[in-house]
């Protein structure tokens, strides 16, 4: 999993400490602690994982093991405009895969990553319930229906201007 590096401020360390304490520093609560930390920071950079490990007195490797096991956890911050491609059955059948490939090419990132300028991140979603519009791409709160690979460039441009 690729990650970015940050420097934690004292305030951040304090927040992590408090989260851990609210679970009695119990390593058995690691998943819940990671949840809370991700809620607060938006993602789980290495430094946050290390600080959690320290507070719970467990190895960083163990924490990282859990973070990488659950796809819910992310080590990169979401972009300013998070892009989600629906890969539910209907969208998939109607060419979501090709749209996704085009997005990857256009943004030069893979799924789960964020562009270096922090503008876009890319993820996949299971059915968003708009099967009539398949294939569906969401950017932030906005939904794009019947997206064809050729449309990708234009859609991205909307956010680049």
């Amino acid at each position: 999993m690729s990650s970015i590096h940050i420097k934690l401020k004292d305030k951040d360390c304090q927040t992590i400490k408090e989260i851990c304490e609210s679970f009695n520093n119990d390593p058995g609560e690691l998943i819940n602690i990671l949840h809370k930390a991700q809620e607060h920071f938006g993602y789980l950079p290495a430094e946050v994982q290390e600080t959690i490990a320290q507070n719970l007195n467990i190895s960083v490797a163990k924490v990282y093991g859990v973070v990488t096991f659950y796809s819910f956890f992310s080590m990169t911050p979401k972009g300013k405009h998070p892009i989600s491609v629906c890969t539910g059955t209907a969208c998939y059948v109607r060419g979501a895969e090709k749209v996704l490939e085009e997005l990857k090419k256009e943004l030069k990132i893979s799924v789960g990553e964020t562009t270096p300028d922090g503008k876009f991140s890319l993820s996949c979603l299971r059915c968003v319930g708009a099967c009539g519009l398949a294939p569906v791409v969401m950017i932030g709160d906005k939904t794009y229906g019947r997206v064809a690979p050729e449309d990708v460039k234009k859609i991205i441009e909307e956010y680049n201007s």
Partner: protein
Amino acid sequence: MSLINIKINGKELQVEEGTTILQAAKKVGIEIPTLCYMNLHDLNIEHNPGGCRICVVEVEGRRNLAPSCVTKVWEGMSVKTHTMRVLNARRTVMELILSDHPFECLTCAKNGNCDLQKLAQDLGVREIHYQGEQSTYKEDKSPAIIRDMDKCIMCRRCETMCNDVQTCGVLSGINRGFTAVVAPAFEQDLIKSPCTFCGQCVAVCPTGALTERDYTNRVIRALADPTKTVIVQTAPAVRVALGEEFGLPAGTIVTGKMVAALRRLGFDKVYDTDFAADLTIMEEGTEFLDRLSRYLNGDKNVKLPILTSCCPGWVNFFEYNFPDMRDIPSTAKSPQQMFGAIAKTYLAEKLGVKRENLVVVSVMPCLAKKYEAEREEFRVDGNPDVDFSISTRELAHLIKQTIGDIKDLPDEDFDKLMGESTGAGVIFGNTGGVIEAACRTAYEIYTGKTLEKVEFHQLRGFESVRSAVVDFDGLKLNIGIAHGLGNARKLLECIRNGECEFHAIEIMACPGGCIGGGGQPLHHGNTEILKARAAAIYKEDEGKALRKSHENPEIIKLYEEFLGKPSSEKAHHLLHTKYFDKKKRIYIEK
């Protein structure tokens, strides 16, 4: 505990409640193949994740096959271990494992010594009926250990060793499904992790996923270079294990044949690390007595216990995990590095060779010594005191590649100047040995009397954390001993909390001490092998004319001609080191 009646392959037997099918079968001499399972019972190490399913058996009345390593017996159970159905299932499991395994057997470091290869052979796998994606991970090459995770079968034995036994917390299972693998945090290289290079993960890995960094090619290159004088030192634990690589029973002492083999390999001089072990006792023992007498005189600045420092895996461990306590271990270098430092000064002069033309090779039961040899502080102008450290296994490979075997070689002696050693130097190879060696010398210096019996039996044994009292003529010394880093951690925490009072403590990173080192012939989970090696070490000690380090004539000469006396300024400069706070190193680079 109540006894339970069961039947295995028609044979009736009684076993204790809680026994697994695998254990029960073993009792009646029925072998069931295993892969992920590992049991080092004398060391209290057990690992049965029940993951690989190679050990399945048929249990009457049960629809599915049962993994025998985790299934407990019940009253009236009837088991069949080798039915057609079982054999088919095992072969299928093996084919599935192999479908994501690189077929590199011919060039693999574990070729001929690999549990997976042996099992595939035993199961008669001739064809893989499954085709799937092959994993590709980047190879991680540290100075001591190579991780080639394409060969990992996810038995997770290494994880148990690293986390539960050694408490180093370096390795963890990460990701899931196809990309699942064992790795350090953030998939960093080992060198950036708090890995102590103890090598215990390598010692138990059933495949070629974890192996030692092999330096035999560089040694061959040095041997072939006519401008170089190449000398070798051999650690105590090597001579009682090397024979295993050539089919000799565990515990065979091959000291003389090993020396002969090294000479035939072309080493200009063959010396003994046991000599340097005696030197270590002189320095460490003097330091101990100095600290002890100041302590007894009420000097508040001096700290006890003193901890031994001859195990580089252990040194790494406290630098990473207990840097706040790094002032209590002895400052004495390990025997490997003492040898190197003396070889490249005293010996180089005697041999009339320039430092840069003298190549020091060490044969060690240990992988941490490879890392130790590369440490910055053990170099002079970039030239290392020890050039290459190879393991017992690598020496065996080197011999097989060149002269073939050792069995028919004559017994030869080490060369003079740094080849003489006492029984005290030999027992460094066993847990409890360093502190026993130290006691032999410290006792005589402290009391001025001659020891009637040189053995300190109370310091011997396999128990993971031990304590014993040694009587220095009325002065009762509390000695602590731990082998395995998890046990070391227990002792250190106890000292830090002020809960236990020891005068001196010996710590060895590997279970059993150096005889169980990460560079030794693989024991494949058989602790009888370790016990046989330990017994051989004590036998070698008994057979020595001299058994106390301070009586070693070459050591006496070294002090007379070169160092002055133990702990002199020159001795300090060459034979002592300092330790660093490396805690920060475990944090990801900013």
